[in-house]
Structure formats: C-alpha cells, structure tokens
C-alpha cells in the first residue's frame, strides 16, 4: 500500500515561483506594444534574480537533503548549486542576447519566455530524483531549445539547425526512455533512491539487462552532452543557430546535464561503475581526440568552438571516470564543467557582440587585428582562449589540474598523459585566434568599422572575462564548493 503524504511545497518554491512568473510574463507580453519589449526583458531578468535568491535561501535552510513529492524530487547541495549556476549562466545569456536579437528581428517576447521555460526545465532536472522527473525536465528544456533555434524564421541555416537538433534530440530522448523502461522492467522502480539501494544490496547487479539499460541511458545522456560518437549535431546546431541561442545552448544546459549524469551514474547506478567507466573511457578519448583535431580544420569560429565543446565534454568525462576510485574525481568534473560554461559563454558573447546588424562576423578572418580595433574586447577574448587551452594563470589550468590529479590518484596515468597531449593539439587553434587578434592587421573593410558596445554589456563581458582570470588566481573557494556539493 502506497503511503500518500502531502508533498513539501516549500522545497519546490523556486520552480513554482518561476512557473507563475512565466505565465504572468506571457500574459503581460501579449498586451505590450512593439517597442516596450524591454518590460519583458526586465521581468525575465528580475524573475531569474528572485529565483536565485530563493535558491540561495534554500542553501542555508536545508543543510541536509530533502526528498519529497513521493521521492521524485530532491533538494540537496548538488541540486541547489546546479540551480544557482544555471540561473547565473542564463542571466548572462539573456544580457548578451538582448543586443544581438535586436539586430535581427527576433526580438519577440517568445525569446525570453521560451528561455525561461528552458531554465525551468533545467531547475527541474537539477532537483529530479526519479527517472520520470529527469525525463520531464529534460524534455521541457529540449523542446524550448528547439523552438529557440528556429526562432529566426528568415534564416535557412537556423531552420535547418533546428530541424537537425529536433530529430537528433528526439532520437536521444527515445534512447533514454527505452533505457529507463528496461531499468524499470528489471528493478520495478524508477526512483533513483530505490534503484540505488537495491543495487547496493547486490540485487540485479549481474543481470545482463542492466547493461542494456545502462547503455541506452548512457547513449541518451551522451547525445545531450554532444560527446563522440553522438556529436554529429553539435557543429551544425552551434553554427546554424542564432549566436545568442548558441551561447545559451553551450552554457547552462551543460551544467544541468552534468547534474542528472551525477544522479543517474553516481547515485542510482554506482554498482555498475566498472561497466560505465570503461564505456566512458572510450567516449572521452574519442571526444578529446576528434573534438580537438577537427576544430583545427574550421574556418568558422562558431564551428570551431562547437568542436572545442566536444573536446571539453571529453575532459569532463575524465573526472567522472576517475570518480569511483578517487576522492576528488566528481568534484573535479563539476569544477571543470562550471568553469567551461563561464568561458564558453564569454567567447560566444564576444562573437555575438562583434556581429553587426544582420551580418554575422563569425569567420576566423573577421578577428584579424581585433586588438587594434577594440583592445579591451581582444584582451577578454585572449583570457578566454588561454583559459580554454588550460594555460595558467587562467582558471582553465586549475580545471585541468583537478582532473589530472584525480586521474593520477585513480591510477589512470596514461589517460592523464593522453588528455594533456590532446590539450596541446587544442592549444593550437586557441592560439590561432590570439594570433589573428594580436599579430595581424584588421581587414580593410572592417578597419573603419567602430565596435560600439553599450556600457552594460561591457560590464557583463568584463565580469565574464575577468572571472576566467580571477578564478584562476583564487580558485580555492569554487573548488571547495564543488567538493561540498559532491561530498
């Protein structure tokens, strides 16, 4: 007999508040005249700030994990921290988006509302404690993103990208669901807690169907992450989507996806870690290898960063691989993905800022002599690029250091050496951007083109770029936070 208890609504306060606000903004936006779109924007950002404050309050309020809604929902350090990161990343993504979407007639209220729905999906993912809620959150996020990619109706590339993204994403969701159904068939449960406990007792561990379930679930997750061999959609979508949407896709969802990976692999299926870590070794090596190698051949900076994101996912997986046999693997992976999101958001923001009214300036050539045109923007890009390459004193170095330390502790020294070798290959194309910006003269037609950026966005990009440096000089607090959330 199932015991039906009243759910603890206050635990889900951020999501509930967010949903109310989205409905409210949707109503308001309908009544707004063209030109007053700033109200929608302001309300959106205020909502994010308010939800951020709620989540902050929860961080203090709940020192221990709370499980409620019939074991489908959890509030623990990992969930709250993921939410905080998602909110900050989305906040910045909307700031950067404003300037960009104004220039190409996609300044609709829908942009923000779809964005907010995506954020809501991510919040649900962060707190999901059963496969059902995970799937719910994931789909809410994905469907909103498909629509956002397609928002630029007059762009063939964007439409194509949206189509690809949708088909691939639907396939991935199918795989994930299929895996979940097998898991349910074997264990009779979709609760992370119940499944984890059952496996802990030694039940089902040697059932071959579990491996099937694991492979399907893992494929679904890796699809969403965009890791090799499920990476085909990444370059096309990153390239085709409006840059502000690319920025959004490349940032917050990565953190949310990392969170559900932790829930599934570490909290539900830790007993299968020999199986999943050996699968992930192959995926990680392939991702680092092909991501870094293919990025070299790109002439479009958005495509280049898309391949680089594949490589960075490979690095993140290294932390998960070393997790079961080291003390710090998971937290190192979390540190890596959060700092990568900061850096990637900054880089895409600069691409978005450089593009003029309707004209994308996303070829590598367009970055020639940026130092002469706008020294500060070039310097920010320099910091971000060196951070991606993992050169001290930027934060990218400490992110890689954490992973390597975990790998060495877990006796994967060869994998650490391989990861660094790929990092060298990767350094080449990041250096090329710096080379173009600093060593070359601007293209003739761009020389007289002044880059005008509003002070607000300059502040945002400065915060973003300097974060890569400051977190590199003082990474201790962030590392500790990651350790706390993944105990």
């Amino acid at each position, binding site marked *: 007999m199932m015991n039906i208890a009243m759910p603890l609504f206050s635990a889900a306060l951020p999501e509930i508040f967010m949903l109310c606000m989205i409905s409210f903004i949707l109503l308001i936006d309908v009544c707004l005249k063209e030109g007053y779109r700033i109200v929608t924007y302001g309300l959106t950002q205020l909502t994010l700030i308010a939800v951020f404050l709620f989540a902050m309050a929860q961080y203090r309020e709940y020192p221990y994990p709370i499980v409620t809604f019939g074991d489908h929902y959890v509030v623990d350090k990992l969930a709250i921290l993921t939410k905080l990161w998602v909110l900050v990343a989305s906040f910045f993504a909307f700031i950067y988006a404003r300037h960009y979407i104004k220039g190409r007639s996609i300044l609709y209220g829908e942009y923000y509302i779809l964005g907010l729905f995506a954020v809501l999906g991510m919040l649900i993912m962060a707190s999901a404690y059963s496969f059902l809620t995970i799937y719910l959150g994931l789909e809410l996020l994905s469907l909103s993103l498909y629509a956002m990619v397609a928002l630029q109706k007059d762009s063939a590339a964007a439409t194509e990208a949206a189509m690809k993204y949708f088909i691939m994403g639907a396939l991935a969701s199918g795989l994930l669901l299929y895996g979940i159904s097998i898991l349910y068939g074997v264990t009779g449960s979709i609760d992370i807690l119940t499944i984890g406990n059952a496996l802990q007792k030694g039940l089902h561990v040697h059932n071959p169907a579990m491996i099937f379930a694991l492979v399907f679930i893992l494929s679904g997750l890796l699809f969403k992450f965009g890791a090799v061999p499920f990476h085909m959609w990444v370059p096309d979508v990153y390239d085709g989507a409006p840059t502000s949407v690319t920025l959004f896709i490349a940032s917050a969802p990565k953190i949310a996806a990392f969170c559900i990976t932790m829930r599934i692999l570490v909290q539900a299926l830790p007993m299968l870690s020999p199986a999943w870590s050996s699968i992930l070794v192959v995926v990680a090596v392939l991702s680092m290898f092909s991501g870094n190698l293919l990025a070299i051949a790109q002439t479009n900076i958005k495509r280049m960063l898309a391949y680089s994101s594949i490589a960075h996912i490979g690095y993140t997986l290294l932390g998960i691989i070393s997790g079961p046999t080291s003390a710090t693997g998971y937290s190192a992976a979390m540190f890596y993905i959060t700092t990568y999101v900061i850096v990637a958001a900054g880089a895409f923001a600069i691409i978005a800022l450089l593009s003029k009214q309707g004209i994308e300036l996303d070829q590598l050539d367009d970055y020639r002599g940026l130092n002469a045109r706008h020294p500060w923007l070039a310097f920010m890009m320099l910091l971000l690029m060196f951070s991606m390459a993992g*050169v001290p004193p930027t934060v990218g170095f400490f992110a890689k250091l*954490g992973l390597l330390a975990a790998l060495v*502790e877990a006796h994967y020294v060869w994998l650490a050496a391989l990861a660094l070798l790929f990092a060298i290959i990767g350094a080449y194309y990041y250096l090329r951007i710096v080379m173009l910006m600093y060593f070359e003269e601007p293209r003739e037609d761009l020389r007289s083109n002044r880059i005008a950026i509003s002070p607000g966005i300059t502040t945002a990009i400065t915060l973003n770029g300097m974060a890569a440096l400051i977190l590199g000089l003082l990474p201790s607090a962030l590392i500790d936070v990651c350790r706390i959330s993944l105990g």
Partner: protein
Amino acid sequence: MWFKHIILSLLIWLPVIGAMLVLLTGGDRQARAARFIAFSVALLNLLLCIPLYLAFDPSRFVMQFQENHLWIRAYQIHYALGVDGISLAMIILTNFTGLLVILAGCQAIRVRIAQYMAAFLIMQGMMIGVFAATDAILFYVFWEGMLIPMYLSIGMWGSANRNYAAVKFFLYTFLGSILMLIALLYLYNQTGSFDIQRFYGLHLPIAIQKLIFFAFLLAFAVKVPMWPVHTWLPDAHTEAPAGGSVVLAALMLKLGIYGFLRFSMPIVPQACAHLAGLMIILSLIAIIYIGLVAIVQVDMKKLIAYSSIAHMGFATLGCFMIYGIIRHMAKYQDAYMSLEGAVIQMISHAFGSGAMFLGVGILADRLTSHSRLIKDYSGVAARMPLFAAFFMLFAMSNVGLPGTAGFVGEFMVIMSAFQSHFWVAFTAALTLILASAYTLWMYKRVFFGSIVSNEVAAMKDINWLEKTNYILLAAGVFFIGLYPAPVLNVLHVTIEHLLSISMPPLKV
C-alpha cells in the same frame, strides 16, 4: 629590514602592477608616460635587489625570506616563496636584464609601446616567481604564465615570419611542460604536498625515478634547449624583437638548467646518476654539433642563437659530470667545481649573449630593411668605432677569453672534467676553437672590410641610451670575469648542499 617577509612578493608583483599602470596609459599618444612608468618600475625592482642581497645570509643553505600562505586548500597548494644562493643570483640577474630590456625597448619599439612594456614587465615578474617559488604548482603556474607575454611579444613585435615562430615557441614549451605536470602530480600523491622540499626525501624505486626523470627532462631540455629539442630556439630568437631575444637568451634558457638543479637532481638522484652518460652525450652534441651549425649561419641572430645552445651545453655538462666524477675519483672537490662552473656559466652567458642580441638590434635598427644578414654589413667599425669596441668585448666573452665572464664557467667545467674523463673534457674543450671560429668570423665580416652600402656608410655610432646599456653589460662581463667572489660567496653553501642531496647514497 622591515619588509623582509614580503620582499619576494614585492619583486614579483611590482612589475605586474606596473604593467597594469602602463596599460592604463592607453595608446601610443602617451608613449612617454608608458616609457617612464616602465623604466621606474624596472629600476625600483633592481634597487630592491640591494637589500635582498645584503640581508641574504650566505652561510645558510635553507630557503631565506620565506613566505608561506595556503593558496588552494583542496590540493594543499601553497603560495610559498623563498630563495637560496642560486635563485638569489638568478633573481638579481633577472632584474638587471629586465631594466636593460626596458631601456632598449624605449628606443627600438615605436608601435604599441604600452603593450610592449607591459608584456616585458609581466614576463619579468613571472620569471622572478619561477626562481622564488618553493611550491611545485606555484612554480608551474609562473613557468607557464610567462609563455603568454613571450608569445605575444614575439608575435606582435617580431619580424616577417613571426607567426610561425611564436606558435612554434608556445607549442614546443607547452608540450615540454605537460609531462612535468604529471610527474608533479605523482609526487604529490606520494607525499600529500606540493612542497618541493618534501619531494627531496622520497626514496622512490629506480624504475619510477627514471620515468620521473624523463618527464622532467622533456620539460627542461626544451627550455635549455638541448639537442634534439632545440629547433624552436633559432626561430624564436630570430623572429623576436631584440628585447625578446635578450630575455630568451639571458633568462628563459636558464630556467631549464634551474629546473635540473631544483627538481631533477635532488628529487631523482639515482636516476640522474644512471642516466648521466646520456645527458653528457647530449651536452657534447650540443657543444660540438651546434657549434658547427653556428659557423655556417648567414643570419647574425641565428648564429648567436646557436651559440647560446652550445654554451648551454656546458651548463648541462657541468651539472651531470658530477656523477661521473664522484664515481671515478670520489673527489668531492672536483664535483663541486663542476657544478659551480655550470651555475656560473648559466649567469655569465646572460651578459655576453644578451649584449650581442642587443647589438644586432642596434645594427638592424640603422638599416631601413632591418636586415640581420651578415652580408648586408661590412665595414661597420669605420662608422661606429665605439660600438665595434664594445661588441668586441662581448664577442670575446662569448669566445671565453680569460678575464671575461665567458671564461670562468667553461674553464671550471673543463678543468673538473679533465680529472676524471679525459675525452669528455677534450671534446668539450674543442668549443674554444669552434666558438672563436664562429664569433670572430662573424665579427670580421660585419665590422671590418670595405663599407658595403651607402646605408652602412651613413650609420651613426651608438647614442647615450645604447651606451648606458652597454656600459652596464660590460661592467657585468668584467665583474664575473675578474672578480666573481661576491657571486661565488652567495653560491658556495647552496651548491655544497645541492651536491650533498643530489648524490645517490654511495654503496659501501
């Protein structure tokens, strides 16, 4: 001295803060302000070395002026600084060279002056950090951190083929350091700390020691550079602006030797003793083969670059000869002399080669084509007699003439080697012939002979700024060459201690 506990931090961060200030002056309109700030910061830093030198107690081998703060708790990484005799000498040398580079840059650089000055100031700070760090990760951060300004300075102010040289430089050194990072992480796993001193007491099995040795070797051999991983150096040297070449030759190459002394030899002494033969062979190849390569160069900067590699061969030779000397003769005194020779060579080379690179910069500056080819110059001595005289002195130091800086280190290394390994010493001594050949032949072709073109005929002798630079460098050459006692005094106890911890336990 009241600021004893922060003096090292001051030395590191003052140039970095200075660089920020310089950048704030903005574009080239305020070039004077940029030059002035950069010069004052560099001068102030050099002046700070005086109390550092005076307060240093040369009779103790422990690290002095220590600073220690927990930096990253999760990995027990400390912001830990401290100097011993060797790092003290290198820090003073860094500040001295830093000032010269800023002075030379005041004249030679005409575009993006603020960024140029900032890059070199940051580089100077990072370099001092490398020499002062006593925490392995802090060391690594400084070690890699200086790649960024160096990369930019080669690429932004270099000559025609600068993109290629800058990327090659960066990737080569980046590649070199990665295995070192893994070795450091392994050592951290063994000791639970990144404190370099804690690594010294480990008695690892010989197989592991060898792996760590090779991991370190790649990092340091690329920096020294040793044959066969030296190919980035001629490119980087040639394409870099004069200031960049000076920093590369006078300081950056020394980081490799410093790494051997600070990491390889004390941490994995048995592996060093085992593989000393290999290191000696590589050093001899650098001395002889690279010396021969230098002779045929047509580009002055390339020639000096190759001669730098050959001279660094002496420093590595001196470091690794100690194992052979001890094994064959068990004479402590000779091993000591060999190691001291290596350290002196490391310091003295900075003056000779740095001055010669500046000289090429001065010459190229006076030609509209900025040519570095020997054939574009001839009869310079007739137009620039003072410059020719100075250059002669530095060339002589490069050759190793007694009384100049270049003589002391080479002589000590060869002398100590002769006691135990005649043929090694004999081969190394051939450099005295090779070095004279390539240096003097170049000197003859550039300075003597008939005047080759109107442009050479119109050359003006060095101005007061260049004179100041050269007087300072000449003082350095004579100081090491004639009265090196103040330097040796500082090094003595440190080298003795280094020797004692770098020796594998003797079999009784």
